[in-house]
């Protein structure tokens, strides 16, 4: 009979497989670290895949508007985990598409920051910690997702992908998004974080009856009502909640397709 540990082992093995495939087939790969629970698990998985090493740069595309706890976390674990950490800023709000709703427009800064970093370092693959269960357009993602020259996602023309054979050939200047934890759920992330003892930013734990389910920029991310102050309590809460994970992310809810528009333009 399958146990929860078997389930986590299976998820882990699949992620390691994806990491090793990407590293074997791509020349200049980098991992996107948003400092949140998902990308922390991702770094952990990379260290498992490469026996304690993260043999590629770790990129933080910094909006400059993260919580102070997130910056403290980055500076501490960037060193402790011996990461080749690159921090790159995002362009200002004034340069973003003015037709986007306000919070969506704010989030678009990250897409532009990514494009600049891609150009600067010439990465051909970016490892990103998105999950299918987070949001409906992410559920449509491929594990290796080719992006156009503008970082755009051609969702109408995604290549076939089966039996863990991934498309890794790109035209010059284009890049690949690699999604090693696409098949995980929020619950899996927390169960694994607990089992492996992966460090977590304290903002995820309840304080004054509220906690963050998902961490983004300080000005467009809001805490949800919760009394969960430990990982065990978070696991309990997630097993029963009907509140979507990204309900505290303002840009998802401004228009029916605002998140899709962001993603098609290159947002994670």
């Amino acid at each position, binding site marked *: 009979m*399958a*146990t929860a540990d078997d389930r986590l082992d299976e998820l882990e093995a699949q992620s390691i497989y994806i990491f090793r495939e990407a590293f074997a087939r791509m020349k200049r790969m980098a991992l996107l670290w948003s400092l949140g629970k998902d990308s922390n698990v991702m770094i952990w998985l990379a260290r498992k895949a490469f026996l304690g090493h993260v043999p590629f740069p770790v990129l933080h595309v910094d909006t400059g508007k993260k919580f102070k706890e997130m910056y403290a976390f980055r500076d501490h674990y960037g060193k402790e985990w011996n990461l080749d950490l690159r921090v790159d800023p995002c362009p200002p709000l004034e340069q973003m598409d003015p037709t986007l709703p306000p919070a969506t427009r704010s989030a678009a800064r990250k897409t532009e920051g990514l494009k600049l970093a891609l150009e600067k370092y010439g990465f051909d693959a970016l490892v990103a910690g998105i999950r299918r269960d987070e949001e409906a357009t992410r559920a449509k993602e491929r594990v290796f997702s080719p992006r156009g020259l503008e970082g755009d996602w051609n969702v109408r023309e995604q290549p076939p992908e089966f039996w863990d054979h991934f498309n890794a050939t790109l035209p010059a200047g284009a890049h690949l998004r690699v999604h090693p934890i696409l098949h995980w759920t929020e619950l899996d992330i927390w169960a694994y974080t607990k089992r492996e003892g992966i460090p977590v930013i304290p903002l995820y734990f309840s304080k004054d009856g509220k906690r963050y389910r998902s961490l983004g920029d300080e000005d467009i991310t809001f805490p949800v009502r919760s009394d969960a102050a430990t990982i*065990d309590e978070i696991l309990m809460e997630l097993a029963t909640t009907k509140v979507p994970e990204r309900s505290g992310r303002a840009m998802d809810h401004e228009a029916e397709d605002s998140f899709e528009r962001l993603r098609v333009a290159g947002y994670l």
Partner: protein
Amino acid sequence: MTLPLPVPAADRPLVRIVIVGHVDHGKSTLIGRLLHETGGIPAQKIEQLKAMSARRGMPFEWSFLLDSLQAERDQGITIDTSQIRFQTPSRDIILIDAPGHAEFLRNMITGAAQADAALLLIDAAEGVRDQTRRHGYLLHLLGVKQVTVVVNKMDRVGFDEAAFRAIESEITAYLADLGVRASAVIPISAREGDGVSVRGERTPWYDGPTVLEALDGFEPARAPQDLALRLPVQAVYKFDDRRIVAGRIETGSLKVGEEIVFQPSGKTAVVKTIESWPVPAAGKEKALLNAGAAAAITLDREIFVERGEIVSTPASRPHAARRLRVRLFWLADEPLETGTVVIARLATSESRATVAAVHEVVDPGHLSTFESKSIGRNQVGEVELVLSRPIAADPHGLNPRTGRVALELGGRIAGGGLVISVLDGEATRAEPRNITPVSSAMTEEERVGRFGHEGAVVWLTGLSGSGKSTLARALERRLFHRGGMATLLDGDTLRAGLNSDLGFSDADRAENNRRLAEVANFLKNLGHIVLVAAVSPSAAARGKVRAIVGERFFEVHVATPLDVCEARDPKGLYAKARAGEIRGFTGIDAPYEAPAAPELVIENDKLDPSAGVDRLEAMLAQAGVFRRPFSAGDDAGL
């Protein structure tokens, strides 16, 4: 206080289930109904769906739950596969929605290939359609063994038992022909809720499971533990002074201390350690890995092995295959036909492959086969592939994981299928039977009279970038302008066509030389002076060339030092080889065996091109290839 951990700790199997079927047969509605009735949809989401439906002037539309793209909602069509989770009483389910529209078959396959089990949906009013059969066939090709058939929209046929039974017998017979047994055929109305999670009161004549009960009976398809060990090598890492072979165990298990063999190289070693991180405490190291595990192992000896090889035990190793017979589905716009060159991917290996023959095309509508020279987009057929280098493979019947291939065309996955049979390298050459060579109508004298010379083969060998092609082209031009019949056979040019099935292994290079020699000899016998420019690094292979051509064979060593060739690097190949992008590159990590007794050595770095051509011409004249003096014609080419 210790809190009891809920769902993640429970022993609940996780099962991936795909829903397939003809477009508009009601897949999305069934998914919406299932999720709703199992309490899997948050109230907030239902409100969103209501608003989306109202905005489009529609009654409540379940499909908007998974059709998350604006274009899907606006056009009412599922474009790409999606996944959503919910729970049955005893299972965690990942439900994979696969588009039914023929145009998006690639997306249907992407979804269905991840599934442990499938629901095949049929509209009761429309019955079994071509797309239904096609999907059934693809499930079989993709290896999905657990199938339940759902006959939807029973309300539209008045819950008529006869209508249901007709569809039931048609589809079960079809699936049985494929070797698939439907675990149940269930009459439902997804829109009205009959038979989904609640027993349909309007189908009293039906005593089988509801859809939810059927889902609750599916099992996860696990990596087979009881088959022979197969560990495809993903990479070899050198971390912390350890050489680590990494990959996922597809089938079987692997133990420390066990002797293993790598195919196709055939190298053997003993597993020394199983590595992991965080580093386990002394005495707690793993000694056994099972199917599905991510492996990292060290060996008892230093051997060179590489990505793409498959680890097995010596007693039950996969074949080193040069020829595969494959039953496949094809998704690209361009048809797959004899001569099409693709990349074949089997586990972690990658090889150029040429379609040597198209054996048959399958009509999934009637399960009949017909002869065809090509397999078109979204068709299924059987082909013979010739690989440019041997890869390790199993017939699908022996091992489903190492018995299936994906085919890539133009850098994009374009097809895939099951390995029906594996033929090794030795079995690939045709026996020369029923062949009667026909001689030319012209005599040698007639040719010499026309061309002014006899036929000959000038074989220019040397490192890449040594100037072979440049010299050969200059000589070709000079002979042509003097009325001669010179023909250039450039190694690279022939590799683009005639020899496109060959790679750069020792065996492939020898075969490349053999073919060049056969073609050169054929042209020599027709009176041409054949100028062959080919690296041809192996002295033994050149010896065979000399034997094939026989008389009037001139081996010319274009002896440009490696550092000069590398500095020139006209094709950028040395840079790639140094960067590790090309393996086995002559002069870098593969040897060049200089000729011991060539007819001529041209130290190309010390001579200007026309002086080199002068020496080649002098060599041919001295050997008596020219029977009458060349007219001092137009020498403008030089």
